């Protein structure tokens, strides 16, 4: 039977769409594809998107590729992308790959949304 569990939670704040990733591990191609298919339609126009990683304990480099695709689409639409809730272990992956220098990363969704005001 097809796995229908939600990959993301979405809520709409005043100045941003906040996407919460609900999986603890993001590895499988199918998971990444499902995430992409869920998130990309949210980028319709100059959207500010906050992606909250608070529940994520493990991810691989394939997820970094997805974030870059999302970032490119948001930039094309003149929106802004903010990441938040990234654990220390996963933040290390961003540091090693120097993606911490191209993504705006905040402790939590509240701080990410404040940065958009």
């Amino acid at each position, binding site marked *: 039977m097809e796995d229908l569990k939600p990959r993301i939670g979405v809520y709409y704040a005043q100045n941003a769409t906040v996407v919460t990733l609900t999986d603890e591990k993001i*590895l*499988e*191609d199918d998971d990444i594809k499902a995430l992409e298919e869920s998130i990309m339609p949210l980028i319709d126009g100059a959207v500010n998107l906050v992606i909250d990683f608070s529940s994520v304990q*493990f991810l*691989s*480099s*394939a997820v*970094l*590729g997805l974030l*870059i*695709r999302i970032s*490119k689409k948001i930039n094309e639409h003149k929106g802004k992308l903010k990441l938040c809730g990234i654990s220390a*272990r996963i933040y290390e*992956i961003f540091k*090693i*790959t*120097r*993606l911490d*220098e*191209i993504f705006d990363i905040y402790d939590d969704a509240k701080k990410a949304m404040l940065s958009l005001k």
Partner: protein
Amino acid sequence: MTLKTTIHEKIVLKGIISELRAVCAKVLSWGKNLGYSDDDLFAVHLAMEEAIVNAVKHGNKQDTSKTVSVEYDVSPEKIDISVADEGRGFDSNHLADPRLSENIYKMGGRGVLLIKSYMDEVEYNTAGNTVRMIKFNSRHGRDGEPR
């Protein structure tokens, strides 16, 4: 007291990522039983994931008739893993650096960097289709004695 247990296994599987991930789960389970830290196990998990995906996608070009072999030794002192595919191999010393500005927006190309960053020793065979990766137990010295 230092346990003398060493688990050795060599598993050859069709190049199907989900089946290879089951081997990764076994290695992590052995490592947990032997008291490796969560940070050590995170490093081994990430390196194995990247090596397995590289072997299947880039090495075997997703040809599931080709095999991937995973050989590992897990002891209280270190986790030593080799992942081999049937591809033509590559030169890991001449890969584009994904951290450079001209590459940083590329979708892929970060797996080998992560393997080399997270594991203590990494070497490729001459053909470039086998990677051997070692993680020492951060709770032990390299002489095997607990810190």
